[in-house]
């Protein structure tokens, strides 16, 4: 064992240690309900940002309609807990609802994966937006799930510790994906899609994987969102929501999970902080909604790479085991040729 036990298990132990805090602190009132809510939103936004970053940041594609996947996850999870799962079991089977929501959202991800084979750039952006609008429109037309009035009745199953767990799961899965051969395939598509195919990457396969995984994560976030708010309607999942996600991705930095975590955190906290600031200054709350788009524009013009750029936190990057020592044969040197 080359790396010491402590170095290898340091992070997981830390995360495990923090877990009881996420259960106890809210219960004991150390964290008041408002902070509890904000932290939950930070977590949900982290998952959303990672989801979108996979497609826009790592793969260099162009989805501006991810709120649609969130919507699917939200509705499917909510329908399950309200209609199918008996109330008593609701809290225990919460992960099942969430996973179901994520799964259906993942399947919907195929709906964008296939067009992405032939379209790129602006056109794909429009496809994703149209997709978002269609989902919203379909949800509005299904009176059985509430139509435009929305759907309600969910218990407040989203606790801080559940959000904590799901964020860790999301980061874990995404990080392993990104640093695997498939993740490298994703990056190669961003860098040069044609060359990628010409070095043997099955770009269609990679695109499908990435869109489905990304949609799955957005669906999970949607389910968590629904069981926090206890009420969802199609209007929560329009281009405005998608734009929030875009801001967080570009704020934190494309192609960086650490960036996603930072971007989501900063964005959520700043917007919440603005609430208090505006209140103190006597300015109406509606001005908060002007901040996100303004931030986006300034970001795009002055710092498009966001906080982290393309860099990643050390603790998320896999280390190479020393001892994979290369040979010293250089065939280009005369005299080195041949066995």
């Amino acid at each position, binding site marked *: 064992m080359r790396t010491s036990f402590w170095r290898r298990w340091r992070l997981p132990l830390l995360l495990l240690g923090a877990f009881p805090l996420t259960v106890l602190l809210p219960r004991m009132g150390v964290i008041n309900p408002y902070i509890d809510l904000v932290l939950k939103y930070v977590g949900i936004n982290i998952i959303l940002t990672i989801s979108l970053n996979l497609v826009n940041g790592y793969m260099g594609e162009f989805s501006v309609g991810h709120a649609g996947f969130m919507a699917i996850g939200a509705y499917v999870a909510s329908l399950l807990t309200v209609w199918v799962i008996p109330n008593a079991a609701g809290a225990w089977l919460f992960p099942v609802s969430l996973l179901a929501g994520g799964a259906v959202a993942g399947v919907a991800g195929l709906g964008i994966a296939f067009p992405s084979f032939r379209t790129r750039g602006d056109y794909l952006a429009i496809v994703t937006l149209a997709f978002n609008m269609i989902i919203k429109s379909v949800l509005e037309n299904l009176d059985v799930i509430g139509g435009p009035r929305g759907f309600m009745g969910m218990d407040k199953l989203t606790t801080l510790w559940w959000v904590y767990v799901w964020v860790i799961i999301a980061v*874990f*899965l995404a990080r*392993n*994906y990104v640093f*695997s*051969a*498939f*993740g*490298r*395939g994703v*990056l*190669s598509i961003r*860098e*040069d899609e*044609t*060359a*990628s*195919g*010409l*070095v*043997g*990457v*099955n*770009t*269609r396969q990679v695109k499908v*994987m990435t869109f489905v*995984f990304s949609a799955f994560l957005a669906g999970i976030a949607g389910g968590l969102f629904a069981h926090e708010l206890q009420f969802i309607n199609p209007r929560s999942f329009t281009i405005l929501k998608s734009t929030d996600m875009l801001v967080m991705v570009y704020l934190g930095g494309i192609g960086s999970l650490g960036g996603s975590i930072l971007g989501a955190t900063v964005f959520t906290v700043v917007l919440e902080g603005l609430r208090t600031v505006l209140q103190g200054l006597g300015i109406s709350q509606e001005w908060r909604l002007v901040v996100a788009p303004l931030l986006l524009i300034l970001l795009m013009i002055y710092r498009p790479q966001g906080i982290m750029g*393309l860099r990643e936190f050390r603790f998320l990057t896999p280390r*190479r*085991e020393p001892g*994979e*020592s*290369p*040979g*010293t*044969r*250089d*065939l*280009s*040197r*005369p005299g*080195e*040729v*041949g066995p």
Partner: protein
Amino acid sequence: MSLLSIHDLTHWFGGLRAVSEFNLELQPGELVALIGPNGAGKTTVFNLITGVYRPTSGAIIFQGVSLLGMPTHAIIDSGVARTFQSIRLFRELSVLDNVRIGQYAETGYSVIEAMLQLPRSRAREAAMTRRALELLAIFGLADLADTISKNLPYGQQRRLEIARALATGPRLLLLDEPAAGMNPAEIGQLMQLILGLRREFQLTILLIEHQMRVVMGIAERIQVLDFGQTIAEGTPSEIQNDPRVIEAYLGEEAVA
């Protein structure tokens, strides 16, 4: 059986005939050069072989299998690799990652295994990394494994591209102007490298090149293209003295 068989390959771009009844038989282990003035259709032939375009007509048979209609990545997986006229590395990625991407086809583990860090994925990753580093060592790039590829000097970028192509485990290597932009010393090393690679990896090599020193120095056979048509074929000395070739092309070559 020939390794690569191309019959009457013809390709039109709209009203322009880029390649006209191109024929080529490559035996395993050969090193053949494709030369001709700019725009003669040489890179187009490479693009047709690797499936970037579907030929208007003609046949391309590799190891007994027709490549027509196969998706590009499948063609590469079947044993054909190429480099590009203008370097097309994955610029923001490290040297090591560029090579590891070439190994995509032999990943050997599934997405789920990767996401859950199951043992097989970790073992395969370590093995792939080891092999990638060994490959880089042959090109003298192992120490630069973590350098971002866009920061490499030009000559090393070219070599990295060849390394990446080799990572796909090919039988046939298509090199598109590998000596472009190199100085005479680098060209000498390149020629040694190509010959060494052929021996080391049992490759068959088809080479597009403008540098006559390289072509005359290492090619066993040469085929000359002009306006999409083959105007001459033969050994280096035959080509050097062919009046048609001299007229079409050799007047403007850069001989070191």
